[in-house]
């Protein structure tokens, strides 16, 4: 008798126990259950929700691993202990030292995110007496990738509890939520603890500590922990950073969002496996480019002088908006969340376009929010059902008209 049969027998024996949903969650994580649907129509397909989630996680793993190396690389680079890597395969990037910083700083984020989030899910499943839902698998992976590396763990834990309960469970759990839970968690952190989520210190490990040491009277050089967006927003020059660095991702930023190269690979993987919607990804990018072009046009027409506080970000060539900041990460992994996005194909185009459009608008116009992607996606999450409604109604109207013409 194999392990699967043993587990199945164990499950049969404990059918009435309250904690059974907890066991089931782990059981189906390993195996397909033996039961099949008994009645009614059902679709036969190899991928259930858990397989779908796993596919997304596979697409995210390269970003996470890269993020670990990058955390260490940015740390040592800021300290001046290593040379700049000069490209994706640079000798000073893929080193054990860099990885150790990543393991030390990033893995705890992953553990806290999964530990706390799954604990909340299990508690709710047991109270409500339903099966544990798989929705948190992807959220738990996304959360560590979209926070600064130095965020205190307890803050992350508080935010995860808030995000899972208020963002998801109050609406009825996975599949019923209006807002993307991972972004709800980020929004909570952003508004609750702004000093840890924005500014020019938090994006490189060690910069905050160094700052405190200087404040305490030690004679050290300050480390800059600023993102490129922050630098642009303050109209400062960007000497020493070339576009390939931005594309490969060896720049400061949230843990997993910097490498555009790996995000594009992940996107292709998601599109190939038909998990992510290429319509949303493409339309988000188009939206961002259009907004960037409009701003470039404003600068070219001379409507805004270089003394304006918006000049720095407005004059960024439109295509560069895609490689600074997290618009690509948002487009590929956040906007495409099947629960909170628009469901209709036409709706997906509108939804994605507006996300890109509004992201760049917030990025340029609001210096307090140097990255507007998460706000834009949350906003459009709220509007997604409305978009769908009008798309469906439009379709109904068109077909009614056709019916009338035929009848007449």
């Amino acid at each position: 008798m194999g392990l699967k049969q043993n587990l199945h027998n164990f499950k049969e024996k404990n059918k009435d126990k309250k904690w059974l949903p907890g066991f089931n969650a782990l059981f189906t994580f390993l195996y397909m259950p033996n039961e099949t649907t008994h009645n009614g129509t059902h679709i036969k397909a190899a991928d259930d929700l858990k397989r779908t989630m796993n596919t997304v996680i596979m697409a995210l793993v390269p970003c996470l691993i890269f993020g670990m190396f990058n955390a260490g690389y940015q740390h040592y680079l800021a300290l001046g202990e290593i040379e700049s890597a000069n490209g994706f395969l640079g000798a000073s990037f893929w080193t054990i030292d860099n990885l150790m910083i990543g393991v030390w700083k990033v893995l705890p984020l992953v553990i806290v995110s999964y530990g706390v989030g799954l604990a909340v899910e299990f508690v709710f499943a047991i109270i409500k007496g339903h099966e544990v839902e798989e929705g948190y698998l992807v959220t738990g992976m996304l959360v560590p990738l979209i926070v600064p590396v130095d965020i205190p763990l307890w803050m992350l834990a508080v935010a995860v509890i808030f995000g899972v309960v208020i963002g998801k469970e109050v609406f009825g759990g996975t599949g019923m939520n209006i807002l993307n839970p991972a972004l709800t968690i980020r929004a909570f952190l952003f508004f609750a603890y702004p000093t840890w989520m924005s500014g020019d210190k938090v994006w490189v490990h060690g910069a905050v500590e160094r700052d405190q040491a200087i404040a305490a009277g030690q004679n050290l050089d300050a480390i800059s922990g600023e993102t490129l967006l922050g630098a642009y927003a303050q109209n400062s020059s960007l000497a020493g950073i070339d576009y390939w660095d931005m594309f490969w991702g060896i720049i400061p930023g949230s843990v997993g969002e910097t490498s555009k190269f790996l995000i594009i690979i992940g996107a292709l993987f998601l599109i190939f496996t038909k998990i992510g919607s290429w319509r949303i990804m493409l339309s988000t990018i188009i939206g961002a480019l259009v907004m960037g072009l409009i701003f470039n046009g404003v600068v070219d027409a001379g409507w805004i002088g270089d003394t304006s506080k918006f000049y720095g970000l407005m004059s960024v060539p439109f295509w560069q908006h895609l490689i600074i900041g997290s618009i690509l990460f948002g487009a590929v992994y956040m906007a495409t969340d099947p629960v909170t996005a628009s469901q209709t194909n036409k709706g997906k185009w509108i939804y994605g376009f507006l996300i890109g459009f509004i992201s760049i608008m917030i990025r340029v116009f609001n210096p307090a929010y140097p990255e507007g992607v998460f706000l834009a996606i949350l906003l459009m999450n709220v509007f997604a059902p409305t978009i769908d409604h009008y798309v469906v109604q439009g379709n109904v109207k068109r077909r009614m008209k056709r019916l009338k013409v035929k009848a007449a």
Partner: protein
Amino acid sequence: MGLLSKKDTKLITDPLADNNPITIQVLGICSALAITAELEASIVMSISVLFVMGVGNVVISLMRNIIPSKIRIIAQLIVVATLVIIVDLVLKAFAYELSKTLSVFVGLIITNCIIMGRFEAFALGNGPWRSFLDGIGNALGYAVILIIVGFFRELLGSGTLLGIPVLGDPIEKTGLYSIGYENNGFMLLSPMALIVVGIIIWVQRSRNKALIED
């Protein structure tokens, strides 16, 4: 309670929990969101509303037979506006700083739906004593929620209660702050007040299933 008959007692106790104006009838939300960032402001607001509702309900009840029903809203507005102006002037005279914190929201008591709601639904059809009890009861129900929300928002948002630091000093890093705790800035923003009220509604309805409507 010898003073009050059973029916009269219900007028006061009902709005405290099972017929709470904020969590059950969902009235008066605007002020609950706007002024609850500090506990002191919520308490003063509660007292102001308590005064306006208690007196206002009695006045309307006394006049209920002489107010023509076509212009009753205007008559109610005049009564409530008069009372609110009294409250406003008293606050300006004796608690100027606080009246600045409450700013426009004292004036907006006039438009507080709970007050107009009780005038319409109760004072116009009942005697002065019962109207008084009803006004006090509803104002207390409002106060309970305001104070709960104000308590959590001030404690978690600023680390103080009634302006007194209870969790330590965030700048000197004493008390809780010495182990890395930080104030939750989100608590000071109005959206969080809505979420706190929502959580209260959630807790209340899961304890008393009869309150859940489809």
